[in-house]
């Protein structure tokens, strides 16, 4: 293994990170593993879904907000450190946004999740792997009506555009999912996910 790219990263206290998971430890099972969407859904958080009444087709689906996206991805481990992306502030709640994919089609269920990633150092070559890990985690956890838009936050990486183009390329992501070595790294990063 090559020398670490950032051997002394800034780490946030995990108690300070925003989460909806901690207060009720038993709820963790709802978010269990990568096949969450296949599990029966428990009724939760009706107060955060004021619009659910108008969406008949989504009645059975758990409302998903930015906090839940954050909870899904903040527990992913950095490929270099046994520290979570939340603690490293690689992902943060204000850099997550959910919006309708087709604003001109009011009844479309499609929503786009945008996640901006802040690499710990501007030349980190692992940015692509981290981005891929985030995208894979979301693809495997969220219902198919979500479109993923995982990008490096502007100005935080020397080759951000290049990384973004790879992360947005459906065919490359699909091929990466069939690459055993790469998926081994991603699986390791996700061992710490709830």
């Amino acid at each position, binding site marked *: 293994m090559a020398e670490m790219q950032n051997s002394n990263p800034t780490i946030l206290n995990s108690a300070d990170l925003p989460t909806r998971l901690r207060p009720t430890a038993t709820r963790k099972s709802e978010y269990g593993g990568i096949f969450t969407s296949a599990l029966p859904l428990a009724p939760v958080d009706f107060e955060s879904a004021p619009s659910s009444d108008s969406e008949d087709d989504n009645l059975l689906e758990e409302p998903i907000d930015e906090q839940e996206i954050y909870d899904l991805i903040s527990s992913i481990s950095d490929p270099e450190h046994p520290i979570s992306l939340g603690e490293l502030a690689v992902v943060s709640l204000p850099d997550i946004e959910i919006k309708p994919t087709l*604003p001109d089609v009011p009844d479309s*269920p499609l929503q786009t999740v945008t996640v901006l990633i802040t690499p710990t150092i501007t030349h980190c070559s692992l940015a692509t792997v981290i981005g891929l890990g985030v995208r894979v985690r979301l693809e495997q956890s969220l219902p198919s009506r979500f*479109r993923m838009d995982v990008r490096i936050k502007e100005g935080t990486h020397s080759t951000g555009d290049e990384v973004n*183009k790879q992360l947005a390329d459906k*065919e490359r992501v699909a*091929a990466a999912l*069939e690459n055993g070595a790469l998926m081994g790294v991603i699986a390791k990063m996700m061992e710490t996910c709830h």
Partner: protein
Amino acid sequence: MSPKVTITHLSDLTPPSQERTWLTAPHPTLPLVATCSSDKTIRVYSLTNFTLLSTITGGHKRSVRTAAWKPHMTGESVLATGSFDATVGIWRRWDSYGQEGDAGMGMSSGDKQIPTDISTAASNGTGTDTADREEDEEEWRFAVLLDGHDSEVKSVSWSASGMLLATCSRDKSIWIWEDLDDGDNNFETVAVMQEHGGDVKCVSWHPSEECLASGSYDDTIRLWREDLDDWGQVACIKGHGGTVWFLDWEGEETEGNWSGPVADSVSESALSALQAQWRSQRALSGPRLLSCSDDRTVRVWRRQPKESQQTGPLSSATTGIPSIIRPTGTDEVWEEDAVLPRAHELPVYAVAWSKRTGLVASTGADGRIALYEERFVTREQEQEQQADSDAMDTTSGDVLRTEWVLVGVQDGAHGIYEINHVAWAKRADRRPGGEEEVLVSTADDGSVKVWTLTR
């Protein structure tokens, strides 16, 4: 402008793949399609009754991304498939689907046909049990594996003659193989082109000439021709602001009954006169090229007529080859003919230009199918536009102008799923079979849907 074509769901192809399907290739003559799936198989469906006929398994170790039928085959079908496992497979099968009670299937060499129990094949179900698999293996014969690419194969295309096969890959290269047709399934590598600066996403041969178009992750479209035994790039089109996902060519006059753009409020004879004039004006450019991109746009490209081009950099002065051998430069100048009306919010993964009607269909990650029609710009419209911007000069004179109009949109064509491919095919579920076309769309959930269009 209000949509004028209604897109109606005719049928799903059943049973579907349980995993992502990438592309569905309609057979050039028979009512069949081949669907490529992430489950490493190719499914062959009937367009007559929309059911599964065969599942081709065991050839590829990863997702099958692409497939293309070899043209001009009689009595036998030949399918080329490209996979993320970096290989290209060639598969063969004696034509016998629907043989019983169907004389119009275009079969000729009766002695070569292996009779197949069609009722068994059609009710084949998921094709997972051993008996079915053995039967499939008997039907589809694995002919040869073309090995050469270093990484995922993205697209394959047969030339109009069927003699050349182009393949492209994430390894940035395009390979051209010659089918030696020696009865021994030998293919010879004719050329390897490595000019693209990124994954080559698609290749597509000119409808009649040996000219190849390619689209890439480097955002360019390139055109390739053979010149003195060497395959080389003759044009590099920079126009798209993102990965070029797919290409298709305009049909040539002989292919279908499409004769040119259409016009409202013009008599039939006046329209044919317009179309004849338009065709003669376009004759020197040859068929146009259609492209779609990650930049959400669909564009049409046109070659500048050869006669008006200057001698290119490959003239005798720069190459040292006597001009008697190389009388003109091979470089071509391609210019943007049109940007189609914007209809997509996310990457556009596929476009298809109907050879029969001239309609263009596009689809992509937003799950939408859009239809466009090319129309003549009437003199009145032209005058209105000129009044709006008096900068227009009057040189256009007799040159006919056209515009592309969005004539139909189907949102959520595969529910919430992304659509990876769309293609035109001849409708085959009704008799007597007319010239009507259907659209075939292929999606992330494994579903393949057939659509009819009504005005």
